[in-house]
């Protein structure tokens, strides 16, 4: 028998620990990506002279390079310039920044879908730039793009496995580490895959539902 059920059962608790780390990485990474992406989108949309161009390039560059290499860069290079973080923190920051480039594009689409009349009405009410974003534009822009953002959260959940390469001890690392101790990869890798599915499939279904609800309110 290729598959060893007893062994498979014995490693599940350890893999669940790994899943929990993966979930934590995803949650904190999501918070970073959502906030930073929002900032990037607003700055780019506001056409702030130098910063806007800079952020344009940031988005282009981050989207044009692999997350793995970005993670390596942060992990190996940053300590040389005196920035000290644990692998976990480094990983969370890297994946958060990486995804902020994607969420920024999502927000942009949302902002563009807010009708010009909303901006004009804000001017007519003498709202300041900050107030306009805060009370009028963003609440409407974000609402429409919640499903799209949700899809990126699921994507981030899956991509966080890449952080195992910089020794973040998440689900896949747990699996390979079990492999190094027991010299078996089949069960840990298969169960790790199933755990990823167990989270991402329901999450994706939930987002689909949300999307339908937003598209057809009430």
């Amino acid at each position, binding site marked *: 028998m290729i598959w060893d059920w007893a062994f498979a059962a014995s490693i599940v608790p350890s893999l669940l620990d790994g899943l929990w780390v993966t979930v934590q990485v995803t949650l904190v990474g999501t918070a970073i990506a959502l906030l930073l992406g929002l900032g990037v989108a607003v700055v780019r949309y506001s056409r702030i002279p130098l910063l806007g161009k800079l952020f344009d390039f940031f988005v282009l560059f981050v989207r044009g390079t*692999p997350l793995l290499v970005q993670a*390596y860069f942060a992990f190996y290079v940053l300590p040389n310039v005196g920035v000290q973080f644990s692998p976990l923190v480094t990983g969370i920051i890297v994946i958060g920044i990486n995804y902020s480039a994607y969420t920024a594009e999502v927000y942009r689409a949302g902002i563009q879908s807010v009708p010009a009349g909303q901006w004009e009405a804000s001017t007519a009410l003498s709202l300041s730039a900050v107030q306009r974003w805060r009370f009028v534009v963003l609440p409407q822009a974000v609402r429409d793009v919640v499903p799209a953002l949700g899809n990126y959260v699921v994507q981030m959940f899956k991509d966080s496995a*890449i952080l195992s*390469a910089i020794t973040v001890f998440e689900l896949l690392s747990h699996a390979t580490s079990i492999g190094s101790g027991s010299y078996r990869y089949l069960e840990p890798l298969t169960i790790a895959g199933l755990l990823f599915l167990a989270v991402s499939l329901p999450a994706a279904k939930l987002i689909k539902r949300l999307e339908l609800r937003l598209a057809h309110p009430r």
Partner: protein
Amino acid sequence: MSQILPFLPLLLNGLLITLALTAVGVVITVLVAFAAGLCRMSRRRWLSWPAGVFIEIFRGTSMLVQLFWLFFALPFFGVQLVPFAAAVLALGLNEGAYGAEIVRGAITALPRGQREGAIALSLTPYQRMRYVILPQAIPAMIPPFGNVFVDLLKNTSLVSLVTVADLTFRAQMVRATTGATTAVFGTILVLYFVAAYVLSVGMGRLERRMDPGRPELRPTLLQRLFRRGGVVGS
């Protein structure tokens, strides 16, 4: 930077592997995407159901887990792929699963009348697909496929974790040998970026070329020379 100059050929060799992975990956992605996407839309349960399971599994798990699985677990089922093949298969299946949804989306987005117009002309299902549906759906697929291809290019870096000597793998090697961490990773970041940029510019070109509503081009000289006689100009 000067430390890594002697290793530049090594890195470029890695870049070549990366580009080869991307090129073969693109082919597999497209094949898988069309096969899975079309099967998914089939009315036959035994076609649509497995396609659906395939798509959900490959979209629902990590690319890296898939790669490890194909590399370290699949051999236990008696399937032994060389590293390059395992890598390219993992990439192609994963991105193909995303591509399948693109194919399906583009086809279902076509107005219903196109299919009905084709039925009214007694075209067979194959002819409908070949002459009516796909020629219109494919141009619509190009921009989203562009994103998938760029993703594919970036994901090739993951194969370095299963011993395939791509650009990232070579970079790790050069780094381990020289310790020139910043220069090595800086260099390959730029290389990846340029490759991704060129790829997306190329896809943009293709998109403009394939615009279906575009007026018919005047026939080129070649076409005029080699086209059989017919109704031109009648």
